[in-house]
């Protein structure tokens, strides 16, 4: 019954091509959600992190007259001193200032006496956006303190190096690509997302939708083995999933110029061979997800119910992605045995610019395909039960 397989496959392709919602998700929403979301997010991050490094730090200072030396040190170090708001705490709480430096009257006296001179940094540690300016201010104050300490030691005839027993030097071995992972860590999820959403509506339409319309019963009275019917349907669902995935990869490939990655000092390795490798690594997942969705959908009674249950599937691949973001680990063989996780790990390595291990890729492809085929057999078995008619 090979011709029947082709007949079912073709019919589902054409039938769903006429459904505007399916088409929109497969061709537009699925493929573009990731890259667009990404372009917006990256640009925002970059503007926050880099944009203001070169700019002078605007620092409201209260009681500047008590510490003219400190103030002129700040000014020499790219800081613009502003008048402090009347109530610094309130101003910071309201987000009107990132940080306010308050120099109390006692400062001058303590400084002159050689005791620790109090200064207050009024800030809101929960304001992530203010963190950069808080750190800049703190670093400036610490540097000033160190300079003064050295001068005081010299005045007492002590080598200032005595209070610097450690000489710490940062040696950053991260390559631009590995830094990219911090920023691009979600990209594998977007690929998974595109594959899932490409399969989503088709999986429902060809299973629960078919039952709800009443077309399943006549279909089951044709002289086609049910396994062949299921195979044709799954092939169509996988195909749509793969189309959505391919478009997503192409979109990322074409749009990468829009990402201000270089400004962050990271290199995105996504040339044509990498894009092709991404597709080959990801495409077994399309069969897997199609079969998984079909199995879940065959337990549901209506289109609506199927939609609800299948929505949970969106969260599933997010679990390994989040786990790897929270607990970064080197790729390991066991990860290749988990569909979604293996693709995530391999995609991450690909973006990092690491050499993909052929063995790992092979295990991922074989295991994911095998799991997909197993689920497909399960779906076929579910379709042989008479309960399938609901």
């Amino acid at each position: 019954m090979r011709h029947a397989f082709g007949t079912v496959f073709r019919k589902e392709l054409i039938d769903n091509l006429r459904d505007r919602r399916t088409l929109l998700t497969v061709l537009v929403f699925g493929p573009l959600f990731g890259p667009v979301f990404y372009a917006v997010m990256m640009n925002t991050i970059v503007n926050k992190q880099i944009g203001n490094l070169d700019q002078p730090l605007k620092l409201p200072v209260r009681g500047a007259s008590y510490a003219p030396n400190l103030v002129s040190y700040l000014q020499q170090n790219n800081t613009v001193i502003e008048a402090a708001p009347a109530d610094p705490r309130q101003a910071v709480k309201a987000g009107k200032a990132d940080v306010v430096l308050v120099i109390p009257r006692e400062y001058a006296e303590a400084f002159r006496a050689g005791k620790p001179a109090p200064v207050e940094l009024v800030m809101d540690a929960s304001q992530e956006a203010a963190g950069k300016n808080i750190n800049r201010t703190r670093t400036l104050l610490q540097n000033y303190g160190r300079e003064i300490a050295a001068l005081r030691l010299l005045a007492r005839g002590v080598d200032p190096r005595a209070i610097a027993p450690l000489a710490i030097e940062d040696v950053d071995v991260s390559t631009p690509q590995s830094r990219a992972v911090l920023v691009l860590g979600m990209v594998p999820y977007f690929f998974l997302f595109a594959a899932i959403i490409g399969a989503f509506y088709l999986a429902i339409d060809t299973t629960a939708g078919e039952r709800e319309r009443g077309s399943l019963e006549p279909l089951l009275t044709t002289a086609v083995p049910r396994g062949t019917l299921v195979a044709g349907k799954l092939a169509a669902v996988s195909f749509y999933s793969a189309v959505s995935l391919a478009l997503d990869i192409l979109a990322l490939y074409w749009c990468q110029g829009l990402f201000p990655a270089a400004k962050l000092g990271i290199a995105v390795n996504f040339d044509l061979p990498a894009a092709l490798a991404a597709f080959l690594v990801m495409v077994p997942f399309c069969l897997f997800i199609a079969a998984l969705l079909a199995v879940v959908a065959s337990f549901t009674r209506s289109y609506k119910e199927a939609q609800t249950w299948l929505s949970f599937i969106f969260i599933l691949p997010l679990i390994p992605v989040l786990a790897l973001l929270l607990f970064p680990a080197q790729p390991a063989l066991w990860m290749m045995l988990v569909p979604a996780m293996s693709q995530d790990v391999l995609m991450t390595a690909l973006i990092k610019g690491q050499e993909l291990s052929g063995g790992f890729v092979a295990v991922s492809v074989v295991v994911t395909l095998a799991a997909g085929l197993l689920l497909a057999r399960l779906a076929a078995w579910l379709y042989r039960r008479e309960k399938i008619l609901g």
Partner: protein
Amino acid sequence: MIQVTGISKRFGAVQAVEAVSFSAPDGRITGLLGANGAGKSTTLRIISTVLKPDSGTVTVDGADTLAAGDAVRLRLGVLPHASGLYPRLTARENIRYFGELNGLAGAALQQRLDQLIALLEISEFAERPAKGFSQGQRIKVALARALVHAPRNIVLDEPTNGLDVMATRVLRTLIRGLRDQGHCILFSSHVMQEVAALCDDIVIIAHGRIVARGTPDEIRRQSGETDLEEAFVKAVDAAPGAAP
């Protein structure tokens, strides 16, 4: 020729069909008559192989539904209770899909499509998507779909449901035509007049059991009633499991 022998089917606590036996010979119209919930649809679904009987056997032209499902399905054209067309496909595409599934292809399929579209007067809406079809149009397309592979045996589950007078007359003429060509036709209905007007043989089913069967004359004679409707009521009331 459809031969049903002692089939029973239970859904949970409900005995839908119990020890049902009858035969629907070629060249005759057999009507399965019963109230809603009497077990008509279950019986027809067992015949069309989408349900399996708990016990008993069904053969279609000698092929067993359990042992040779594919062979049975090739010999059977089924119009299920819900017409179940694909709304985004046109009438012609709906029919063609089932033709291809049942092994037709090329010029033979094309010819068969044109023939059915003419026979069932579908041409006016043949190229329109099924989404906006009237009930009558839907039944016609679903019937064409059931007939596309020229099956010897035709099973119709309440085919005249929701049809207007004209459409019903067209359908009756068509069913008689198929009978005269030698097809075996089994159809279910809960409408007495429907069965009386069309059927050569009547099988009355109540509470999942056969309570009477034969030609309309035989059924009238068995019950001692001159009116078929009275005969039907009498047969159903006498059935075991009837409400006291």
